Structure formats: structure tokens, C-alpha cells
């Protein structure tokens, strides 16, 4: 590639002026050019992998450092004690202040975060502006009911072991889209190890396709590049030909 450009450059140069002795020039230039190429390569890799994420994501602290461990120990029903289903089938999500007040009318301990919570929010009646790691774009309709009640999924599958966290981790917000980094995944290349590492549509699709292959009653999602074969499209057995449908966009989008 470099030689190609090299020549191009050369001819243009020739047109303009023909002062230099060619060969000597060429050898020296080659080295320098290679160095520059490497600089460019390394530089842009650094930009892409190191600086870009810093620029793309802003770091935000949760208004209150929340200790899930303490709370999980204190309640009876695990996650559902605070993150429960309403009668109409909707999911309550992050608790409102009114829920917290039940126990935290007054500070129960010496924890400065709790004191801050009581002082700033409970007494003043201000809702806590929690930053929700798993907040999906507005176009997404996610039915907790179908996944938890019907699918008997564990919270951990999507939300990871947040229930075992003692501190709220930093919330990284995508400056361009306004969504949490957790959606795209910590790994900028989009690699993931566990099911909860990313929360993009492909991740839903992946899980659904797997279940589908096992013969579960689930809706399949379109694989993003839907004209290409999907990794999970292979028939689970010769009898069951998994019919991949992409007809249910409304199921998760509003």
C-alpha cells in the first residue's frame, strides 16, 4: 500500500520539480513513511480503544450510594420486595420515595449515605433521581411480566448480580444517545461473557433464538442483519425446523 502511494506522490512531485536524486531519497523516505504509518495506526487504535470511550461516556455518580446487600438481607421476598409487579401487570422498577419512607422515615443507622438520603429526600419529599443502568430507549417495550412470571427468568439473567453490590457503581452515560453504557456493554468491541453483559436487541434475539431452538414458546426476534444466516438458526434436530420469524416487532417496540 505504501509503495502505491509512494509512487503516486513521486510522480506528482516530478511534475512539480525534479531536483532530488531518486534512490537515496526513496530509501530514507520508506523508513520515515513506515514510521508514520505505525504512528497513525497506533495513534488511531489508541484513540478508538482508549480515548474515544472516555469522550463518549460521561461518568456520573448515583445521588445516593445504595447498598443492595444490606437491603436484600433486610427484606423477605428478595428482589420483588422492592421491585414488584403492580396489580395491572406493570412492573414498578426502581422504587419511588414513598416506598423507601416506609422504613426510612428516620435514619436507621449512622451511614452517611442514609443520613444524606433522609435529609435530602425523605424530609424534603424530593424523589431521588436514580440513574438507571438498565434504562432502555423509549421505543422499547419490555414486559417484565412475560419474562419473570411466564418465562420464570431470574433477575440475574439480565441484570447480573446487582443484588450483591455494596456500593452503587459509577453510571456511565453515552453523551450522544443519553443511555447507560450497560446497554451497549462494558466491552466496547461488543464482546460479552455473561448474559447480563449487554442489553442490546441482539442480546434479546440471541436468548430467544436459543430458547426457540429448545422448543420453548417464545417469540423470535430478527437477527439484526436478517438476510444473513444466524448462529442459532441451525435446526435443533432434524424434526424441528426452527422457523425464524421476524413478525413480532411490536412485541418489544412501542
Amino acid at each position, binding site marked *: 500500500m505504501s509503495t502505491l*502511494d*509512494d509512487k503516486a506522490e513521486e510522480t506528482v512531485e516530478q511534475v512539480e520539480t525534479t531536483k532530488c536524486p531518486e534512490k537515496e531519497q526513496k530509501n530514507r523516505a520508506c523508513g520515515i*513513511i513506515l514510521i508514520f504509518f505505525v504512528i497513525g495506526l497506533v495513534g*488511531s487504535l489508541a484513540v478508538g480503544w482508549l480515548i474515544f470511550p472516555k469522550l463518549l461516556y460521561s461518568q456520573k455518580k448515583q445521588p445516593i450510594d445504595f447498598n443492595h446487600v444490606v437491603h436484600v438481607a433486610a427484606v423477605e421476598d428478595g428482589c420483588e420486595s422492592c421491585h414488584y409487579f403492580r396489580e395491572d401487570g406493570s412492573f414498578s422498577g426502581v422504587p419511588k420515595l414513598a416506598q423507601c419512607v416506609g422504613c426510612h422515615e428516620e435514619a436507621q443507622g449512622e451511614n452517611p449515605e442514609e443520613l444524606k438520603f433522609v435529609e435530602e429526600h425523605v424530609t424534603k419529599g424530593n424523589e431521588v433521581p436514580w440513574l438507571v443502568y438498565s434504562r432502555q430507549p423509549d421505543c422499547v417495550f419490555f414486559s417484565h411480566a412475560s419474562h419473570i412470571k411466564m418465562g420464570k427468568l431470574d433477575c440475574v439473567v439480565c441484570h447480573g448480580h446487582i443484588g450483591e453490590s455494596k456500593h452503587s457503581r459509577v453510571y456511565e452515560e453515552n453523551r450522544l444517545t443519553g443511555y447507560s453504557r450497560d446497554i451497549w456493554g462494558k466491552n466496547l468491541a*461488543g464482546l460479552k461473557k455473561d448474559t447480563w453483559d449487554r442489553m442490546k436487541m441482539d442480546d434479546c434475539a440471541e436468548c430467544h433464538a436459543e430458547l426457540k431452538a429448545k422448543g420453548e414458546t417464545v417469540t423470535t426476534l430478527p437477527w439484526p442483519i436478517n438476510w444473513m444466516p444466524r448462529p442459532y438458526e441451525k435446526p435443533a434436530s432434524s424434526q424441528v425446523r426452527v422457523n425464524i420469524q421476524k413478525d413480532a416487532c411490536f412485541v418489544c417496540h412501542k
Partner: protein
Amino acid sequence: MKVCRRSFLSLIIGGAAGTALSPLPLKLMDDSSIWSQAWPWTPVPEDGEVSHVGSICTLCPGGCGITVRKVNDRAIKIEGMKGHPVNNGGICVLGLSGLQLLYGPTRVKTPLKRVGARGEGRWEKISWDEAIAEVVKKLGGLREKGKSHTVACISGTDRGTVAQLLGRFLTVYGSPNFIRIPSIQDSYELTMHLMQGVQASAGFDVENADFVLSFGSGLIEGWGSPVRMIKANSKWKERGKVVQIESRLSNTAAKADKWVPINPGTEAALALAIANVIIQKSLYNADFVKNYSSGFEEFKQMVLNEFSPDDVSGITGVSASTIESLAKSFAGSSKPLAVCGRGQGETPGSLNEFMAVHTLNALVGNIDKKGGVWTVPDPDYIKWPEVEMDRIAANGMSKARIDGAGSKRYPDTRYLLDRLPNAINSGKEYPVEALFVAGANPVYTIPDSKAVKEAFNKVPFVVSFSSYMDETAVNSDLILPNHVFLERYEDVPTPVGLQKPIIGLSKPVVKPLFNTKHLGDVILLMAKAFGGQIAKAFPWDSYEVCLKETLGNKWDKLINDGFWADSNFRPAVWGGAFHTPSRKFEFVNKGKAESIKIEGDEKAYPLILMPYDSMRLASGFIGDPPFVIKTVEDTVLKGKEIVVEVNPKSARGFREGDQAILSTPKGSVKVRVHHFNGIMPGLVALPRGLGHTAYDEYLADKGVNFNELIGPVEDPVSGLNAAWGIRAKLTRA
């Protein structure tokens, strides 16, 4: 130089390679599309817990029950209340758009005092204390001078606690001039009063009627309680017949089983001709006529002599055979019902016509019977102690009303708002020194807008209680904004036209958004500020207390269900139903029923302009919210121009969509012409509900207000406005 350029190129290539190997391009491409999917300037509605609040819609006198869906503390949507006796889940276009009024830009957010000239729109924000002090000071001054009777109050209704408080305040203050907004209610009340001797509203058992003879009533276009009427119409589609008598193919006419086009203004004659056939062929209810009516013989002679089908056919343009067949089917039905009041019924009309139509109901004996016209007493829950007037009040109350209602000339009429502008402008009566306007927008809704504005300008002190910046509010000196209907408690007695007395309760669905105050509370505060007998007449701490106390044991039911219906209510029995001197139904014979002559010279104005109403245009005191305006067809409004309907036959060279000048003796406006085969040649029809000058940019300056083109025509018997049209012409723009 050399090295630089080549190296630069190399650097770029290296950079490109590196970039391609980094997540940057894909991530940026993905994020930029996500950015475009959630542009920061596109709102994202907040999710939360859903709740429902039941209430009553008071945007029109229909009194529908509503259920408001809320998410957290935001009201999301208004829906019809299931199981409500009026609308049972149904709801109209205006009711559905109520939240646009609540959250809309036309709200008056705080008390305002005029700074610039009247109507200029320059205001100063003042506190509630200042505002009330200002009113009390002004009224106090007038009272001291013994001019308490020069205070007038225009109210949208005279029923329910708020209107009653307002009336009570006026009484103890010392003014007889409490004036209700006119409508066919006035004519029907008067008809009931004269023919049945009752002071009650007319209720129509439309659900059970099996033959409805409508003299131009917009049964499905907002007449009566709109949603209820539309529901009834669906019932008629299953079992029942509707005949619409009207000179234009309105929606009602189009939906009716039979449309009888008629020369406009001749409805009374047609009714009497139908009576003629019924009597001649002895199709009437002999029992009722013989035992429970008086004056039948005189009436019979009159119709037989003067209203033969053949004669009337010439007047009305309805063939004699049609008249006969109408009479036969009407009288031959088991539960026939005749109704009148044009369009949505916002113009009272000629008393003769109302009585002639009501006579038909009497002839078939369908009064206080299933499927007929019922006498509906007001629910009698407002039982406050009699007011004790001081000397000044008594003196003021002894003065004649400025609108002439209850005078020798119009002894039985209660309110004559249409006469007020003229009374003020002519200066024949005493001047009006202060005017209150509540739940009404007279500057927009009263005919002859020019005269109304002139009259307003003659009143030195105008106070508006409007929640919105409407035409009247714009032309006032002080605005004391009421909460909107979704922010306040209010009792809503029997909706117009309903045959059973019920009470609905409007509830605060959301906390008041702005610095507004309930009109009831404002009245109480004013009364307190006056002290003396005035304060004594209002022994409540707040409106809510007053309302709770007034409703007594109905309160709990109202809070839970949203309405209270008198389950014991039965229509009166003929034996005791009539309170006329004869204790019988009176076939009142006021002589030859002359049709109302409309304004304008036929030669100068060859056409007749008539208004038409539509469910998609609110023509009352509420201006259309954006959703409603959006439903308006382009054959009604095009850009900012109003479209008038003419029959292609009388279009005289005006092609579809042409611009034209529409002139009447009252004024001329620019319009566009729409050819409509459903309208009688010789007529021009103009939609009501457009031409607002106030409100927001979604409504203001669109089309023409019909009231600018017409003035009131006094009915000789009642004094009410009986104008059904006006002479007009179309000329080239």
C-alpha cells in the same frame, strides 16, 4: 516538504487502518442512529404507576361521566365513564381533548389586571388578595352609592352550587341582574311553563322513543346531551325511526330514516299542519285530549281553519302527501316524540314553534310517558337558608332587570341575555357599572358581535372568571381565573335533556397547576370581605365545605361513583302533572303562528345565510382544543379561511373552492365556496364555532364567527332570540 506530504498520507492510511480496527466507526454509526431515534427535542413521556379518577366533564351542558387515566401525577387521557347513566363509556371529541385545555397554552395562570386599553392584551399579574380587594372595593363603592342593581352577572348556568352561590351573592349584594346564557332551554322551560304550568326542564326519553320527529334539531350534532343523543341514535337504528325536517342535509338528516327538506323558518306551520291531519283523522290520544287537556276545541278550530296540509305545503315546500304520511306515522307509532330547537340548540327560537311542536306530543299523549317528553324537576339538594337582605340589597333587588326578563312585556321569561347589549348601548335603562362573567364567553357566543363588544366597552368594570384567555377575558378589566374542570370540585345537576334527575360530581383529577382559585371560594372570600348580611349569607369556610354540606348524604356516593341518580324517580301521572290554572295541559292558542321574519332585504340579499353545527366544532364558551380543530374537514376550514356551503344551483358562477365575500346586513367576511348538493338552493350555510380571536395560535383567527354576521331577532311572545338565519349575498372577492 516531500517527507511531510508522503508521511502525512502514510499517517492517514495508518490512521484509517487503526480506526477501522477500533470500535469507533461501528459504535459511532450505531450511536448516531440511536441519537436520531431519540432526538433530545422529542419528548419522552415518563412512565409510572397508572391510576384512574372518575369525574364529570363540564365542557358542555351534556354532563358526561369521565374516567381520567393518570400516570403518577400526570393526567394522560380522558375516557368515557363506563356505567354512567348519560354516556356509559362513550365520549365526544371535545371531552377527549380536555387535557389539551388543562395543559394548554391558553390557561390564565394567575389573577390578571388590565394595564393597556381594553382588548389590547396587556396585563399585570396580581395576587389573589389584591384581586379580591379590587373587586370588593369597586362593588362596595357602587353599593354605597345605592347603585348595587347596576351590577350584572352573566353565567353559563343557573344550576348547581357554584351558580347558586353566584346568584345568592348577587341577591344579598342587591342586584336582580343574574343572567344565564341563552339556549333552547329557555324556550323549552317557557313552553313547559305555559302549557303545563311547571317550572321545570324538559326531559326527553329518547332511548325509548320509537318515532322521532325532529324539527331541525341536530340530534347527533350536539343537541341535548351530545353523547347520550348519539347513543340513542344507535338505538333508533335498531328499533325506531327518525324523521328529520331541515332545509340542509345535516348529519342528523343523513342518518335519519327520512329527510324532509323544508323552507327554512316554516317549521311551526308544518307542525300545525301535522296536527291538522292528526285531528282531522282523529289519530290523537282521545283520553289525554279529553281528560287532561284544556283549550283543545279552540286549538282544533285554529289548525283546521288555518293549517290545512295544502296551504302549509305552499309555505313549507313539503308536499301535502308527505305531511299526511308524517302525521300518520307519527300518530301511528307507539312512542312518538317530536322535538325542536335548531342545531345544537344554542339559539332559543320562536316560542310559537316550540309550542306547536310540543302540541304534537300532547296530541299523541306522549307527555310524562315512556319515550316521551318528561317534566324534570331540578334535584332539590340545594337547601340553603333564605338570604336576609339588608336595606340596600332589598332596594337593589326591587329594581327591574336590565334585560327586560320578567317585565310586563315578557312576564314569563327568566333571562334575556340577547337583549342586554342593546339595553346597554341604547342607554334607555340604567347603565351597567360592573359585569361579572362566569362559565361563559358572551363576547364570542352572543349574536351581533359588534354590538356586544360595544356594550362591553360601555361597562366600566368587567370581571372574568375564565380559566382560559377567551374573547371575554381579553375584553375584561380583571381576570380571576377559575380552576379548570379537572382541578376542581363541582356538582353537576341533571344534564340538559335528560329525563331523570341526577347529580354528577366533578372532581379534582390533578392538583391545580397554576395560581388559580375555585370560583366558589372566590365568592366566599368576596362575601367575607364585605361582611354584614352578605358574609352571613355564606356561612362556609370553603367551597368544598359548602359542597359537602349541601350534598349531605349523597356525598359518599358521589365520591365513589361520580354520580347520584334518584332511583325512585318516576314521571308524573297525568292527573297531577299539570299546574296550569286549569290543572290540565293547555293547548295555548296565541293566535296565528307567524313565522319569524329574518333580518335583511330580499332584493339586496338574495340568499339566506344559516348556521350549521357540528360535533367537531365547539361553539359554546369553550374554544376548540387542537385535537378538535384537527378533525375539522377541509370543506369547513381551509387554512385560515372558512368554507360556506351553497347548492351548485345557486352558486352563480362560483366554482368549488372559489373565494367570495359573504355579506349580511350585519357585516361581510371573506369565505370560500363549497358546492354541496345537500343544501336547499337559495341558502348559504356557515359552520358555527370558528372565528375565534382569542385563545391560542391553534384556534385563533381561523375562519369567521357566525355571530359577526347575524343579530338577534326578538320573539314577540318571549323576547328570546328567534333568529334562525339572515339574508345574505355572495359577491366576488
